[in-house]
């Protein structure tokens, strides 16, 4: 990992082979015939490879949806697994076109990194995983605990804030990857493993006896996770942003993978606009009129992707909660396609 960031830093320094600050990302991707997408090193539900090397997950679906909109083929994506601390450097250096790796949207990341967040794929918050045998029911009982975290995340700072704010002592052990942190937690080095709540459910599945571990009720931070693109290419920024909006709008309009062909024949004005039978909204984004049809056929709407990867239809079984649509009690809200 150290070597990767070194090479990337040198590459940025040398700067020769890197498309910098050009409004050419879409063209580069089209010419290459493939989207290069930065994902995690394996977080079930968000981005993880199966035994055949196929990547699945909510973050992966965003990449696939972008590829579907551009190429009409959701498989034309090259997934680049990145550790938390290497992800931004990979985006800055141009190694990837879009970073879709459960990354928390914060002000400093939005400004100093030379990159922009395009939206929120998942509203998350940081939580704690403990062994049930410790008989801890609240995070406020964690005074003097040892805590394992993955280094290079917002988690480390939230953790410091939370324990300081509640006048509690703790010991932090920071590991290079989430796997190493979970391994140390499992071996008893730490009492607590902390990361985003969705991540806790995902990592718990990897433990030997998932039932022996519990996620504490406290959520100590706001972690809106979303994709990122480089500064300086507004066309690409718009496209990535609207692909996610299209998935959310498709759910709101009731467009699903199953009924997409019927919906395309509908006379409803909003459906006609969204599905490109009326107007040329897709072309304004730099893709084709039927871009939403391509996305929904490729990966489904937001709700379908959520259910398949992290919701009731997956092993994680996380409730929609905040990620429910705005008109159904959640806060997922996309501007209209018109």
């Amino acid at each position: 990992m150290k070597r990767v960031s070194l090479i990337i830093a040198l590459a940025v320094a040398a700067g020769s082979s890197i498309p910098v600050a050009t409004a050419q990302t879409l063209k580069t991707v089209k010419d290459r015939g493939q989207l290069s997408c930065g994902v995690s090193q394996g977080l079930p539900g968000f981005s993880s490879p199966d035994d055949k090397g196929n990547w699945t997950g909510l973050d992966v679906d965003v990449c696939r949806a972008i590829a579907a909109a551009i190429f009409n083929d959701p498989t034309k994506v090259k997934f680049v697994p990145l550790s938390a601390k290497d992800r931004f450097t990979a985006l800055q250096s141009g190694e990837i076109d879009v970073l879709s790796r459960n990354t928390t949207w914060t002000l400093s990341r939005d400004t100093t990194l030379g990159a922009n967040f395009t939206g929120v794929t998942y509203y998350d918050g940081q939580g704690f995983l403990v062994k049930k045998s410790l008989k801890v029911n609240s995070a406020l009982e964690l005074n003097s605990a040892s805590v394992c975290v993955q280094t290079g995340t917002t988690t480390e700072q939230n953790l410091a804030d939370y324990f300081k704010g509640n006048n509690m002592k703790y010991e932090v052990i920071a590991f290079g990857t989430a796997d190493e942190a979970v391994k140390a937690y499992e071996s008893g080095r730490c009492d607590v493993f902390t990361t985003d709540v969705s991540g806790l459910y995902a990592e718990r599945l990897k433990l030997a006896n998932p039932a022996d571990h519990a996620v504490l009720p406290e959520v100590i931070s706001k972690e809106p996770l979303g994709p990122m693109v480089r500064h300086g290419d507004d066309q690409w920024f718009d496209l990535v942003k609207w692909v996610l909006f299209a998935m959310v709008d498709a759910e709101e309009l009731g467009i699903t993978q199953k009924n997409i062909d019927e919906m395309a024949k509908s006379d409803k004005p909003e459906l006609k606009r969204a599905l490109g039978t009326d107007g040329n909204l897709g072309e304004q984004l730099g893709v084709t009129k039927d871009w939403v049809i391509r996305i929904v056929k490729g990966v489904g709407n937001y709700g379908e992707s959520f259910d398949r990867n992290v919701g009731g239809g997956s092993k994680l079984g996380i409730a929609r909660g905040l990620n429910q649509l705005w008109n159904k009690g959640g806060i997922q809200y996309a501007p209209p396609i018109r």
Partner: protein
Amino acid sequence: MTSELRKPPSQFLLTLQRALGGRAGWGGFILQLIFVAVLVWISYEIVSNASENLKAQRITAGFGFLANTAGFDVNQSLIPYAGSDTYTRVFFVGLLNTLLVSAIGIFFATVIGFVVALGRLSPNWLLARISGGYVELVRNLPLLFQILFWYLAVLAALPNPRQSVALFGSFFLSNRGLIIPKPIGEPGLEPFLFALAIALVACFALWRYSLRQLFRRGEMIRIWPYVVGLLIGLPLASVLIFGVPVAFEVPVLKGFNFAGGVRLIPEFVALTLALSTYTAAFIAEIVRAGILAVHKGQMEAGSSLGLARSAVLRLIVIPQALRVILPPLTNQYLNLTKNSSLAVAIGYPDLVSVFAGTTLSQTGQAIEIIGITMGVYLLISLVTSAIMSFYGWRLGRSLRA
């Protein structure tokens, strides 16, 4: 007339020409000049290109971030550190942790390396085979794997804090590390240290005196009873007069962990173990080669003088072998220091983990941070090799003398 005007070429110019151009003369000098110019141009291109690219992408650049608040905690720090300190302090915390694990690793690697080398050369069949087996096993397994092995093996073998192994009710061993009572200075501490210092100085003087007597008159003076007397007697007297020098804060199990006391974290133990045993295998081979490089006749000459094997090794063979050993030994010391950056795998907060890891990802300033980190490793390595070169120079001088 003309012969009077001819002056010999200026001595100064000749010296300058030789210094700058070597044997090739001014032509060589020009070549060097061009080479330097190209180097300067390349580095200028790299720097200007990088800063332009950063500006174009609106990525923050510069070293201003070093004054910002870090906002995260570190589990081992030799200097007082809290989350509200700056990234500069984080840098020093990481640097000191790296230096600590390197220094202790180098010490143990050297000791184990010498012991194994002597064992491998020993006439004792079993000892030689065991030492040989150690070298072959340890140096042929990847280091990262060994670090993880020690870490997970050490952790797996130890109980949780509530069932920790206690010794005298004040030493506790658990998977949170080894917790020992923490010494706290009492009023008697200063006289105690003073008495100890006097005892040490006196012992040193005694030793010099005995050496001089040995060389001048050939007498062996038994000094060890005096040494023991001084080292124990003087501090003991100070304790009796001024009271105990230190009190101990005994660790107590409180909540999940022990409160009070000093703690050796398992990450540190595992990393030191792995680094020193791994490097020791290489050092053992270097030492063995060095000893074998000393002519057999030296050993035989020593034996024929009636010296014991250990005395022959200590007085005759090893001083000569050191000359051969030193340069590759320096390499191993440098390797160990650089290998300590694998610490991030087991969560030991070294420079790479807290500075080139957490700080980098929180500030996103890869070029600056990687640059600083590389500079620091370069500096550590250069200092180490300078110290070893100095030692080698002194050794060479004393052997020639």
